[in-house]
């Protein structure tokens, strides 16, 4: 019984005959046929065949009335939703049927009807939806599913009538605070508020009290995975810890969620913990380890999730001077089978993780990638090596430089292009260090083709002409295809020829610069280039007239043509405010682009850390304890505060026979940090001793 034929375009009349056929006899085959006909309608709507399907409205309505089969109802609602938002005309006809379903005793049908009401943007539908939600809230005995649907519906209704929704805020707040309620409903209510606050930049950010926050997180274990994630997401910035103990307790409660299998939960837990760490002054090494390990574990997920995690790792590495995470570089080594976007991002992580200790390891890897078959990858690896040379200290630069020289020997075309480009940057940073290798580099003059590398080569030749007795020949070579070169190369040739002339005012350089100037003025079509050449020409004429031919040129001319270049620096650091916002957006799309939402869309709300007496002004002041010292201090406060806040343990979470024993043990276990995470090296010793392979 394939639906294949269903998925083709039909005319309204064809389906109509299908539908009418079966009213005569009530055989089961005809019932199937009728249902197939209905399915054809939906398929055609999916295909965009709206006009034809609109004609079938009377048939749909007749079925809606008589049929109480659930699937048919579903199709009717689907029809109403799809066409209702496109053709508002028909909505009035549909409304009574939807309302009839809303009154049904069948909860599932009610949910469906409510969703249809909300989906169709017509005033009469919206009003009915509000009416229903208000009456339902007042009854307070509706089922979980229905209540949740109603709460989520408010997010949608808010687009249509914001004021009416704000009137309901008090009731929603009450829902969050009612402990007796199903926690899933509490979360739905919280999420609704959160989502509405996020939508309106003119509203203050959502805030809930520390007490209700504790109430909620203590019921984490009763929630399903998606609700857990929603809760943790909404709590970030919504709850403001007032004391260090608040933050520590919250961290303790949510930390186990890092072991959840669902990445959504893990990343949101992660975000929440990172957020809370702004409200403490020290953190135990144990927590850092747990955070780091959970990140590493996420790298085994599906590529898309891995990608997201890696992007967030970059963010976290950038966000503090001393990274909060302790990650081993080997996890970021590129695998042969990784998709390209993962390779790319791993490369970026490696770059950020590099320091004196890890450099040799990373360079070895990068060398591998640089000779990779994938051209993009190879280029990026070379770029990374060059950037590392600029980023790290002089010794590191030497290592990088030597590696690049070694790679240059392969002589593969695109490798050479890329290496020459990055050499320029290294030479800018260390102008005097690598003079001895200039000759080696200049050998590749013939190989440079791409504008960037050609520009780089021209710059290198000009800058280090002192060390090149044959600089004129080399420069002539670069100049040979002037008319075919792209504009940026032409500019750089023009500028460099003048520079050479000023450095060595000999007849050869005069000839050279004169040729270039003439070509620019006489032959080139681009007005900017011509203007620049004319400017140089006049400057030189001016200088010549004042001081005689080839004499020392005017200082100001020097400054214009060949002034000292500014230092170069890699802009790996972002603005602290931006970083703060990004850290609150862990796991969102923003974190992929590493751009603050407010920069891209004005309309988005900027997240910021709410004020609190314990807000840590400077992130980098957060100290990492190497022992479990603070967790012992906390054990006392926790022992005092926790039982008070958890008067009832949920039965499911702690089977009855265990609860009493538990009380005694809890202290001892929470005072010693989790023993799960230990050094793999220790384990290895044991493993290898006990189990020789």
């Amino acid at each position, binding site marked *: 019984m394939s639906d294949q034929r269903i998925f083709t375009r039909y005319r309204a009349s064809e389906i109509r005959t299908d539908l009418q056929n079966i009213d005569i006899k009530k055989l089961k085959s005809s019932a199937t046929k009728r249902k197939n006909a209905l399915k054809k309608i939906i398929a055609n709507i999916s295909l965009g065949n709206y006009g034809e399907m609109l004609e079938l409205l009377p048939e749909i309505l007749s079925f809606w009335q008589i049929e109480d089969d659930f699937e048919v109802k579903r199709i009717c609602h689907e029809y109403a939703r799809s066409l209702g938002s496109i053709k508002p005309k028909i909505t009035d006809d549909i409304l009574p049927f939807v309302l009839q379903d809303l009154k049904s005793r069948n909860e599932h049908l009610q949910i469906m009807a409510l969703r249809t009401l909300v989906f169709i943007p017509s005033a009469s539908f919206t009003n009915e939806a509000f009416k229903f939600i208000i009456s339902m809230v007042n009854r307070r005995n509706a089922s979980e599913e229905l209540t949740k649907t109603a709460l989520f519906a408010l997010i949608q209704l808010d687009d249509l009538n914001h004021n009416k929704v704000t009137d309901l805020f008090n009731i929603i707040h009450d829902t969050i605070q009612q402990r007796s309620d199903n926690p899933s409903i509490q979360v739905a209510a919280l999420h609704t508020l959160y989502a509405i606050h*996020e939508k309106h930049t003119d509203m203050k950010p959502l805030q809930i009290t520390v007490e209700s926050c504790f109430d909620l997180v203590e019921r984490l274990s009763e929630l399903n995975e998606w609700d857990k994630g929603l809760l943790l997401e909404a709590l970030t910035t919504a709850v403001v810890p007032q004391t260090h103990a608040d933050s520590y307790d919250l961290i303790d409660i949510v930390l186990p969620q890092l072991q959840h299998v669902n990445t959504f939960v893990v990343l949101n837990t992660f975000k929440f913990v990172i957020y809370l760490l702004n409200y403490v002054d020290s953190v135990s090494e144990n927590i850092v380890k747990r955070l780091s390990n959970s990140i590493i574990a996420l790298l085994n997920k599906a590529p898309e999730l891995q990608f997201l995690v890696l992007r967030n790792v970059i963010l976290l590495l950038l966000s503090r001077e001393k990274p909060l995470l302790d990650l081993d570089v080997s996890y970021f080594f590129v695998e042969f089978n990784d998709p390209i976007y993962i390779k790319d991002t791993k490369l970026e992580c490696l770059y950020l993780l590099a320091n004196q200790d890890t450099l040799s390891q990373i360079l070895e890897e990068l060398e591998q990638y640089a000779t990779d078959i994938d051209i993009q990858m190879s280029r990026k690896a070379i770029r990374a090596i060059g950037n590392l040379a600029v980023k790290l200290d002089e010794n590191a630069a030497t290592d990088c430089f030597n590696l690049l020289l070694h790679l240059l020997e392969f002589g593969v075309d695109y490798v050479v292009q890329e290496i020459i480009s990055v050499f320029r940057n290294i030479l800018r940073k260390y102008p005097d260090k690598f003079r001895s290798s200039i000759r080696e580099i200049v050998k590749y003059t013939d190989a440079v083709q791409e504008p960037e590398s050609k520009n780089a080569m021209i710059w290198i030749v000009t800058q280090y002409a002192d060390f090149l007795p044959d600089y004129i020949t080399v420069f002539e070579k670069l100049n040979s295809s002037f008319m075919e070169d792209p504009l940026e190369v032409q500019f750089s040739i023009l500028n460099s020829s003048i520079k050479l002339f000023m450095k060595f005012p000999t007849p050869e350089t005069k000839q050279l610069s004169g040729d270039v100037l003439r070509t620019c003025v006489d032959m080139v079509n681009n007005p900017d280039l011509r203007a620049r050449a004319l400017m140089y020409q006049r400057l030189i004429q001016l200088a010549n007239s004042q001081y005689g031919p080839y004499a020392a040129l005017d200082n100001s001319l020097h400054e214009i043509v060949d002034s000292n270049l500014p230092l170069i620096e890699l802009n790996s650091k972002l603005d602290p405010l931006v970083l703060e916002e990004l850290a609150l957006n862990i796991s969102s799309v923003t974190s992929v682009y590493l751009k603050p939402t407010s920069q891209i869309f004005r309309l988005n709300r900027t997240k910021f850390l709410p004020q609190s007496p314990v807000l840590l002004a400077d992130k980098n002041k957060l100290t990492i304890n190497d022992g479990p010292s603070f967790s012992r201090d906390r054990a006392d406060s926790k022992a005092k505060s926790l039982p008070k806040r958890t008067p009832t343990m949920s039965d499911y979470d702690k089977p009855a026979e265990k609860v009493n024993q538990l009380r005694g043990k809890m202290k001892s276990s929470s005072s010693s940090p989790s*023993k799960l995470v230990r050094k793999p090296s220790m384990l290895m010793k044991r493993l290898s001793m006990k189990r020789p392979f």
Partner: protein
Amino acid sequence: MKTRHLKLFNSYVPYQSENPRNLVTNKVISIMASAVYFCDSKGYPLLARRYRDDIPISAIEKFPTLLSDLEEETNLVPPCLSYNGMQYLFIQHNDVYLVAIANSMSANAAQIFAFLYKLVDVLGNYLKTVEEESIRDNFVIIYELLDETMDYGIPQITETKMLKQYITQKSFKLVKAAKKKRNAARPPEALTNSVSWRSADIKYKKNEAFLDIIESINMLMTQKGQILRSEIIGEVKVKSRLSGMPDLKLGINDKGIFSKHMDDDSLNNEGASVASSTTDKKKNNIELEDLKFHQCVRLSKFETEKIITFIPPDGDFELMNYRLSTSIKPLIWCDMNIQVHSQSRIEIHCRAKAQIKKKSTATNVQIIIPVPEDADTPEFKYSHGSIKYVPEKNVIIWKIRSFPGGKEYSMSAQMQLPSIGNIEEHKAKRPVQIKFQIPYFTTSGIQVKYLKINEPKLQYKSYPWVRYITQSGDDYTIRLT
């Protein structure tokens, strides 16, 4: 002095339309996915479910162009695209794309990706394979599932077992549906229980639980035998066929789990020195990093007592997974020696060694050796197994059905290279890949000590079963230099 900034290498800049007037300025920003689409391999939509009315209907029409544009420009297509303020997040499965569109950057990407994967998982249980054809054939059921699993862009129930109770695959058989009509329409009781992943009225004649412990080894080695990276990824899979609401307790010889009991011991006889207990008792216990549990495991209980307790969902599920990053010795090691005499021939010598216990045997060993694309006329010499040249993939595959521990096998191959051709063409650095399975063995040494099954009401007899297997992961490779 002003400092100039260098661009970090190609970071992902949102792909924006050039003309700012094109930007759809939505007055409403939502933080969840607004729609989910199933698209074919080119990116054209097959099915759509719009959860919110805040993105233009035409938004998805841009998706195929975005894909092909990016593929043309760079060969780099990240799983998030941004266009006109719309965020396209997608995953690929077989020949379909699952695309979620959100209209704001603050949309939670982790949630969306996790949901899309869950959706594929759920659909896999309904349709066997999730591909273009099966999606077209079963669109009604997919619509139903999309309705149930997500509400206004917020994920809802995603447990297949729960969904199957009221979305049945045979729903198009009207007779059956009509009979069940009243039951089917009501959401099952279990939805409102605190145990959302199991319904109460499950019955089996014979109560059994099967545990599979599967360890995958990922290793990256150099030709010289240097180990660049190694890790063990473990999974504990459970197939539960148990009646009622059983409460299970799993004991594993993990130190993290067992040290708790040891603490108890040392508390009992307070004089006992900690040192002796650590040396004597902990020897047999291994230690797992990064445990991840299925949602049924009581995490808080695990946190405080280090005991894994859970009420399992019915049927197959993954109870937990873990990761150990330790430098282990390669289980199957190959000494590779490849000599390329350019323009004439390539010689490959390979000596494989099973560095596992004498008692164990590796099965289905495959050593996949890359050869140049233009090589031909292979000649092989080998002691064991079989060798095949697969020209489509440009590899030689050496298969050894069973490879006992401690044994050493070798092979040599020679292939001709064309006499003309580009000399010193840039070679693809493909690694040698090794695949294997070692039954009844776990590399980490993890062992199940007990699995207690307790159903408070029914008190039936139950049978737990355990199997162990170690296998190569996706990346068990030797890099060639």
